[in-house]
């Protein structure tokens, strides 16, 4: 009996809540967002949301921190399948095909007003590439990055290298790393030359190496990958050789999450990591460090990375409009500059770099623009149908190679075969 009464009561309350939100003046928005780097970024987001609400009293935004990118995607999709989707979310820019296949999102073009086209064109084109398919814009860049090389200037000096000359080519990086490796009396390594993370975002690092070797990993329609091309194999071979042949990088999988600590503790003289970690490194480093573009083989290059805003289809037209208002506020030059300064992510529009705040910041800390300058060489991040599955396949292949379980050739052949099986359906 009691259960029944309670259930009835709950049902009544839910209905009442439904009416309540329908008649109230404020538009309620729920947004999920991820944090994949160090530093107290949730506070920054909360603070920005507060200020937005003050300026826009008719829109209420509930910003929910939902873990890393994968967790946030899981949460958004689960909520959607459970019938309670958020109205907007920050998700991987590369989740686009998956979200489209699930029929979850709407194009932004239809929601922006008359001046919308100008706004959409104000972003860096490299960041828009992951969000545009055909004629439509499906997502708006927010926390975007490229991979950069962080290096310990003090360690460079100690090893007799010029701290203002980071490696510019693959060969240089391997050579310099050899000089940077430090061993204790009993021959154990106390400082490695360079570390490239192989967990979590292994596919991203492989893509960077492949781009530098002048090889793209996917086509524009997101249904073809080229993992077993000769140049991709060479890229992975170089990575594996750094640990197994040159012995300047630890063997085994290198953890994405603890790599920043490794660098800050001086356990490695160089690391490849997202520029999104820049402010966290800056705040915690007890030594002089530099930031450089990734070294080149055939060319410079890095994939873009990071998260975009998406607007969900199930939101009411009113909510979708409000969501776009919020997104425009968050990506306006001042806010983009603020977000970039507080995190290290690349500000998403060129105008953000013309703001006073940004100019002053860059003057004192020129490392902040390296990732932006690298944009001219950047290529969209690996983004295909069934992205989650493909990422897993590539990550497994990378890990199989760096742990020595398979040769780069075998690992990538197998990854290609598995991916073909998955992507066949989308041709």
């Amino acid at each position: 009996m009691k259960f029944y009464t309670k259930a009835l009561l709950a049902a009544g309350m839910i209905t009442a809540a439904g009416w309540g939100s329908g008649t109230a003046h404020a538009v309620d928005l729920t947004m999920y967002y991820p944090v994949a780097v160090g530093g107290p970024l949730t506070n920054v987001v909360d603070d920005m949301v507060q200020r937005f609400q003050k300026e826009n009293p008719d829109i209420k935004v509930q910003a929910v921190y939902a873990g890393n990118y994968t967790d946030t995607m899981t949460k958004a999709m689960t909520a959607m399948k459970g019938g309670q989707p958020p109205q907007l979310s920050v998700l991987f820019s590369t989740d686009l095909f998956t979200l489209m296949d699930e029929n979850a999102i709407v194009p932004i073009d239809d929601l922006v007003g008359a001046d919308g086209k100008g706004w959409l064109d104000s972003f860096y084109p490299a960041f828009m590439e992951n969000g545009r398919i055909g004629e439509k814009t499906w997502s708006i860049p927010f926390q975007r990055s490229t991979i950069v090389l962080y290096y310990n200037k003090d360690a460079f000096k100690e090893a007799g290298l010029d701290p203002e000359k980071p490696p510019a080519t693959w060969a240089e990086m391997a050579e310099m790393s050899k000089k940077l490796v430090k061993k204790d009396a009993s021959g154990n390594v106390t400082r490695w030359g360079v570390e490239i993370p192989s967990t979590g975002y292994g596919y991203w690092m492989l893509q960077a190496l492949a781009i530098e070797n002048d090889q793209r990993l996917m086509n524009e329609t997101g249904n073809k990958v080229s993992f077993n091309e000769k140049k991709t194999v060479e890229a992975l071979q170089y990575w594996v050789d750094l640990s197994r042949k040159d012995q300047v990088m630890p063997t085994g999988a290198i953890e994405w999450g603890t790599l920043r600590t490794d660098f800050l503790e001086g356990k490695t003289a160089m690391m490849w990591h997202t520029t999104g970690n820049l402010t966290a490194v800056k705040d915690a480093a007890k030594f002089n460090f530099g930031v450089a573009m990734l070294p080149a083989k055939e060319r410079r290059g890095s994939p873009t990375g990071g998260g975009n805003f998406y607007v969900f289809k199930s939101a009411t037209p009113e909510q979708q409009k409000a969501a776009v208002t919020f997104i425009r506020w968050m990506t306006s030059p001042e806010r983009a500059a603020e977000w970039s300064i507080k995190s290290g992510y690349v500000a998403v529009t060129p105008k953000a770099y013309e703001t006073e705040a940004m100019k002053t910041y860059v003057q004192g800390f020129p490392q902040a623009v390296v990732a932006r300058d690298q944009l001219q060489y950047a290529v969209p991040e690996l983004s295909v149908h069934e992205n989650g599955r493909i990422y897993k396949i590539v990550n497994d292949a990378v890990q199989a190679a760096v742990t020595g379980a398979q040769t780069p050739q075998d690992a990538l052949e197998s990854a290609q075969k598995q991916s073909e099986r998955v992507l066949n359906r989308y041709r």
Partner: protein
Amino acid sequence: MVAAAMISARPKTAKRLRWAANANAWLLLLPALVLLATFTHYPILATLYHSFFSLGRSGPATFVGIENYQAMLEDDVFWQVLRNNLVFALATVPASIALALLMAVWVDRKITGRSFLRLAFFTPTVLPMIAVANIWLFFYTPDYGLLDQILRFFGFSGHNWLGDPGTVMTCLIVMVVWKEAGFFMIFYLAALQTIPPELKEAASVEGAGRWYFFRRVTLPLLMPTTLFISINALINSFKLVDQLVIMTKGGPNNASSLLLYYIYEVAFNFWDTTYAATLTVTLIAILAVIAITKFVYLDRRIHYQ
């Protein structure tokens, strides 16, 4: 039983009584039945149903027969996680049982600091797995983790414990045994205290040694508990995967992945819900076989007091 006794006693009113007794019983069972049906039986049947259909991401789901199961048999990752799970079970179950027994026998005796020892042994059980995994993640961190610091102190070189497919499974097994053994110890402790002291006296009168007594009297009397624990440990080895989320995400290259974690990945990272249903049915089948073996076969071969 009650109803049956009544029937034989008063055949006239038997039918009505039986009905009343049955209705009463059904009413008492109802809450549990409703909960089980809604949250256990229905989901199992729905999972089974979905495992025979296509995903239907673009268009309606169609019946595909055993196609999903055929795909599973051809899935290398499935075989690997199954193998991993087997290794994981075969290593954690006997080790945690042996350790639990050892600890229980130790703290069963009258020694100083007995309560403290019991508490210490039981503490890992109270901690959430997520917390435990985070603590052990620090132990295993290369170079500056606890394990490497100790090794380094003795002049050995460090090792990338969780990043090496050769060591990652052992690392997880050690941690899980540490976490589980304290819980099983409690059962052994309770069982040890039900063994009548007369047996011990009688045995010492007969001149039996301590080891002999333990082997021939204590161990057989503990068998029901051992069976209970081993079934629990076995089932746990299939359903405990929290540590993977924190420590390895099943890597490197699936070396530490277990069946349930793979199901999670397929369902919530790949959004392939029908294949996840197929894998789930397989997992349920494995667990059902374990349960049936216990109830039908093992229970008969064990001496209950």
